[in-house]
């Protein structure tokens, strides 16, 4: 029974195993980044960055066709340009970073739509750019796993300054010249994980797997390590359940995975022990006399 429901789809079909592996890679790589995005009050930055990536991927596609490499490099370059430009503007002018990021990502998005539209006759570019988790080939899998590993390694190196910046950005800026480096490297991680994610799930779905588990984890753990572990667990469970739903009930897999993560977030919101709706409103025992 459980074998048929849970194990058989993966035992019988290689594409399901590939999809699961791809999702786990994205979960491991992207969710810690998502946790830091949330802690730094930058939850919507992920969404902005996802849009900023589009023109780069589109140019990559137009230059060398359906090549994973070209689209990846294009997306990375476009995302980095937007991240660096908005960071630079924030540091040399009085405009705040969120406003300049909004400006640059909108410019980038407009450029992307322009490119897609003027060449859109050939094939639906949006459709090509939005990958599907069911068609991961070896190169895509290797790319996803490398990005996840690199992301985890870089995050390990950056961990202390990042935590400091979450807690007290002014302090880090005052004691270390590396605050800027930390910030940009972190943005590079965001871009890299999004580019990896859009090969697997499509850009918008990639933001979902980055942010939703992190938001859900907020209700389960207080320490940063706990948050990351809980988020990665939520992401992996969502991937597994989403894929199985897609398999058993004929649902498109990308939206299924993100919706399961969304349900996870909703349940955490209500039942989570750390600040969840129930825990918050129950009379606390330690205040009893």
């Amino acid at each position: 029974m459980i074998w048929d429901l849970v194990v058989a789809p993966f035992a019988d079909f290689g594409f399901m195993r590939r999809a699961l592996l791809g999702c786990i890679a994205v979960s491991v790589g992207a969710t810690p980044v998502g946790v830091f995005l949330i802690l730094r009050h930058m939850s919507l930055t992920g969404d902005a960055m996802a849009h900023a990536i589009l023109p780069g991927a589109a140019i990559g596609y137009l230059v060398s066709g359906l090549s994973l490499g070209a689209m990846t490099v294009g997306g990375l370059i476009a995302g980095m340009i937007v991240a660096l430009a908005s960071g630079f503007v924030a540091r040399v002018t009085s405009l705040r970073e969120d406003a300049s990021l909004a400006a640059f990502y909108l410019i980038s998005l407009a450029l992307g739509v322009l490119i897609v539209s003027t060449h859109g006759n050939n094939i639906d570019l949006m459709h090509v750019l939005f990958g599907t988790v069911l068609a991961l080939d070896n190169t895509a899998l290797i790319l996803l796993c490398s990005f996840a590993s690199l992301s985890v390694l870089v995050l390990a190196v950056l961990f202390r300054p990042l935590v400091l910046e979450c807690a007290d950005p002014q302090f880090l800026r005052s004691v270390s010249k590396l605050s800027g480096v930390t910030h940009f490297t972190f943005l590079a991680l965001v871009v890299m994980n999004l580019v990896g994610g859009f090969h697997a799930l499509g850009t918008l779905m990639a933001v979902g797997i980055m942010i939703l588990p992190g938001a859900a984890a907020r209700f389960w753990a207080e320490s940063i390590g706990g948050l990351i572990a809980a988020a990665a667990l939520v992401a992996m469970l969502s991937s597994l359940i989403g894929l199985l739903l897609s398999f058993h009930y004929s649902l498109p897999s990308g939206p299924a995975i993100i919706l399961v993560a969304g349900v996870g977030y909703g349940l955490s919101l209500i039942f989570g022990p750390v600040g969840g709706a129930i825990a918050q409103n129950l009379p606390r025992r330690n205040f009893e006399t």
Partner: protein
Amino acid sequence: MTSLRSVFASATAIVTFSLTVPTVSWAEQPIPVVATFSILGDMVERIGGEHIALTTLVGPDGDTHVYQPTPKAARSVAEADVLFMNGLEFEGWLERLAEAASFNGAMVVATNGIVPIAFEEHEDEHEEHDEHEEHEEHDDHDDHEEHDEHEEHDEHAGHDHGTFDPHAWQSLDNAVIYANNIAAGLAQADPANASAYYINRAVFVDQIVALKSDVDAMMGALPADKRTVVTPHDAFGYFAAAYDLTFEAPQGMSTESEVSAADVAALITQIRRDSISAVFIESITDNRMMEQIANETGATIGGTLYSDALSGETGPASTYLDMIRHNATTLSDALGS
């Protein structure tokens, strides 16, 4: 994003139209006509010859399912005397475009008079025909409510077509009907050259008939256990019906829908069970999925089929007749061996 673009397109179209005086056809000047996509455009070109100035909206290798009209397209439509469309809701965007461009010429539906195939293959043929007759009584462009009612019949989730498979040109018999409709449409818009159009039609129909006997021979020679074909999207229903082949596709009828794991799994199971040896890719779709399926089942990629669009000038399917011949040869080479 999409709605903004279409608002922009309509706005531009209105401006364009108000600046453009609709052209009147003169006998010595080619009449401006628009065809919606490359395959139809090729047929119109053949029959219109030098008497028409043709604009094709969705060019070679373009995907008509997801086409987004540009202001330039709206302008072509506004200036056209005749607008050729496939019908059967293949061009979902055309109605809005024609309205935005204030098109007031003649609209010719190339599939008028064919027997459409319903989405469900197992439906009784007689019933299909009756349903079709019912449709014919209404204006071809105004019966959306009707289609919506029928939508529950089909099981392909997420596509945006009506009740019937629009890819009717894949049958050579239907191509003759296309040619008749095109010739009649042109003759009506440009009576001075009517005889030329009918002569061109006759030449084209002769070529179709000649090709049909070749394709009949190739398909007839396929062994009985090799008559299942796997393609990315369900575009070959008419070809399959004509030659008793079975086409399977993970993506369903429209290239727009997203696949589910269940669809892919069902297809892989079938390929394994029926020991299907070759799967095919299409010129207009994302072929990563088919490559993965081929990988997993050990089937080979049999070649590229052209379904919804012609290839460019240098490709193997730059005209309608070449396309059908290329598809038949590809199928016959991959399945016959």
